[in-house]
C-alpha cells in the first residue's frame, strides 16, 4: 500500500495539535472571580444519649472481677446538628448521625460553600446532645475579612470550641 509522506506530516500535525491543546486547554475556572470558599470541617463525637449510671455494690458483686466498673454508659451517641450563618443568613447546615452498629461513632462533618470575598459576619451553632433543652449548646461568632480565592477553614475542638483557620 502506498505511503504519502506529505499527508502523513499533515496527520501528525493534527495529532500534535489535538494532544497539545487538550493536554492543558480549554482552561477551567474552578472558582468564580471575586469568590472565596468557607469550609466547615471537623470530627466530633456527640454526647451519650443517656447519662452514665453508677453501678451499685450489689451489681458489682454479681459481675466477674475483670468486668467490674464503677459506671455503666450506654453506647449510643447524640446526632450532631450544626449550622453556619453568614451575615445572619443560613449558609451551611447539617445533622450528622453517629455511625456504627450501635450508633456510637464520631461524626465527620465536611461542608463547604462559595461566598463573595469581603467582610462577613459568621455565626456557628452546634448541638451535640439530645439531653439539653436549648437548641444549641455551642455557639461562636466572628467577623472575618475574606480575600478572593481565600479558603476559610472553620474547625472545632471540644476543649477550645470553634476555630477560624
Amino acid at each position, binding site marked *: 500500500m502506498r*505511503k504519502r509522506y506529505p499527508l502523513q506530516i499533515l496527520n501528525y500535525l493534527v495529532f500534535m495539535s489535538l494532544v497539545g491543546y487538550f493536554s492543558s486547554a480549554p482552561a477551567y475556572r*474552578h472558582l468564580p472571580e471575586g469568590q472565596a470558599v468557607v469550609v466547615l*470541617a471537623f470530627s466530633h463525637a456527640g454526647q451519650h444519649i443517656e447519662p452514665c449510671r453508677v453501678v451499685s455494690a450489689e451489681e458489682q458483686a454479681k459481675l466477674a472481677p475483670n468486668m467490674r466498673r464503677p459506671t455503666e454508659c450506654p453506647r449510643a451517641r447524640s446526632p450532631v446538628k450544626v449550622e453556619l450563618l453568614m451575615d445572619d443568613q443560613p449558609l451551611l447546615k447539617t445533622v450528622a448521625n453517629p455511625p456504627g452498629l450501635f450508633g456510637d461513632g464520631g461524626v465527620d462533618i465536611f461542608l463547604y460553600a462559595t461566598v463573595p470575598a469581603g467582610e462577613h459576619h459568621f455565626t456557628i451553632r452546634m448541638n451535640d446532645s439530645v439531653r439539653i433543652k436549648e437548641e444549641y449548646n455551642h455557639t461562636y461568632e466572628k467577623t472575618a475579612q475574606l480575600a478572593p480565592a481565600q*479558603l476559610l477553614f472553620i474547625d472545632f475542638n471540644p476543649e477550645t470550641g470553634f476555630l477560624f483557620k
Partner: protein
Amino acid sequence: MQSAPIKRAYLALENWFNYSFGSWNPLYHLGTLTFFFFWIVLVSGIYLFIFFHGSLDGAYDSVERITHDQWYAGGIMRSLHRYASDAAIGCIILHMFREFALDRHHGARWYSWFTGVPLLWMVVTLGITGYWLVWDQLAQYIAVSSAHLMDALPIFFGSMARNFLEGALSDRFFILIEFLHLLGQPMLLVFALWFHVRRLSNVNINPPMGLAIGSLLALLALSIAKPAISHAPADLTVVPQVLNLDWFYLNIYPLLDYWSAGNVWILTIGITFLLMLLPWLPPRKAGAPAIVNLQYCDGCKQCFEDCPFDAISVQARTDGAPHEHEVVVDGALCAACGICVGSCHSSNPFRKAEKELKTGIDMPQLPVDEMRKRTISALDSMEGDVKIIIFGCQHGFDVTKLGSNNTVGVTLFCSGMLPPSFIEYALRKGAEGVIIAGCRHADCYFRFGNRWMEKRIKGERPPVLRSKVDRKRIVIQGGAETDRHVIEVALNDFRQYLMDSRENRHSIHTEPGGSKEIPHA
C-alpha cells in the same frame, strides 16, 4: 447497540489514514501504539525520577528545576512524559471505539473487551497520581477533589479531604503517592495488560518502525514547541481559581463542582459497567466453534499455529492413529472464523475418496464440503467469457452483490478460511481468474485471516498454494463493506488483464512452476 452510521463514519476515517499511511495506518496499530507510548512514558519517567525530590517542600522546586534549568533534557523529557501519556489515552479510547464500531467485541472476543475496559481507568488513575506529584495548584485541586471522591465511598473512616485543610500532610504522603505512581500502579497495569491479551495468539506489542518513528518525532516536536509547565505552587490556604486541566486524564473533576461526589461515582461506575456489559448486549452473535475430525487430522499443528484466538491446543494422540499429536478446540475461545479450515491440508477439494468432503478441522455452519459445493455451483452458474470467481469474507464487502453472468461471489467467514487448494480447484474447473476479497489490507476482522491467506499464496506459510498455479490469475483485493467501488475497479482491471494476457498466460500456465508474483495484490 452498534449502528451502521458509526461504522460507516469509522471506515471513512480509516480510509483517509489508509490513503496517507498505507500499511502504517495508525488505526490498525492502536494497541501497539499505546504500548509504544508507554515505553516513552517509562523512559522519560525514569529520567525525571532521577532529578525529582519526593517531598512536600521539595517536589515543586525539583520539577521547576527539571523544567527550566535543563529545558533541553529534563524539560523535554517532562513534556514527552505528559504528551505520550495523553497520546496513550487517546489511543486507548480510539482502540475501544474501533472494536465497538467494527463489532469486534461480541462472542468469544468478550474477554479482551471485558478486561480492556478497566485498563482505561487504571491508566487514568496512573496519570492522576502523576499530576499529583508535581504539587502545584493543579495537584492541589486534584488531591482535594480526589479526597472528596474518596470520602463519598462508605469504605473509609474519617474525612480524607480534611487532611488537605489542616496542613496535616507530610512527606509520607508523597512516599505513598510516589510508590503508587512509580511501582504499584505500573505493575498492576502490566499484570492487567497480560490478562487483556491472554486469549490472543501471536501478540505483537510493537508498531511498525515508520509509525513509531513518526509518532516519536511528532511528540518531540510538540515537546519543543509547547513545553509542559506547572501551575503556581500548591497553597492549601487558597483555592485554585483557573486551571489548565489535562482533559485526557482530569475530565471527571469539574463534574464535582456541579454534582455530588456520590453522583460522580454513580456516573463513572455506571458507564464502566455499561461498557463492560456491551459484549452481551444485542446484537449477539455466536458462531458454532470448530470441530476436529481426528480421522482426517495428522496432528501437523498448523491450525494451532494459525488460530488468532488461542482456541486450539495440542495434545498426545488419543485415537491410536500413528501420529504423535492431535488438536483440541476450546469452544469458549473459538471465534468461529474458520481460519483453521484454511490451515488444514486435508481441506483439499480434489479429494474424491468419499462422497462427502471431510477435513481435519471443520466449521459446522459451513463445512468444507459445503464450501466445495458452493464453489462448484458458482463455477457451473457462470457463462460467457472470462469467468471470475470471488471468494469474499463476510466482514468485508459482500461479494455476492457483484454477481453477473461471468462473475460469482462465494462468501466465507474469513478469507483465511479459504484453503489454497480451492484456488487451484477453481482455476482448473473453469474459472479464468480468482479474486480473494478479505477485509481491508493490513486489517482483518479475525486478526490474521488475510495475512495467512496471502502468505499461503506466496508460498511463505503452510499449506502453500502449489507453485505451478499461475499467480497472475489470482488477485487479492481487500475491502470493507463500504468499498464496493474498490472491489469493482479491481474486478474490471483484472478482467481486462485476463483478456489482454490470455494468449501469453496460457503458455505460462502449461509450464510447471509458475511465477510467485501476485500482480494485483
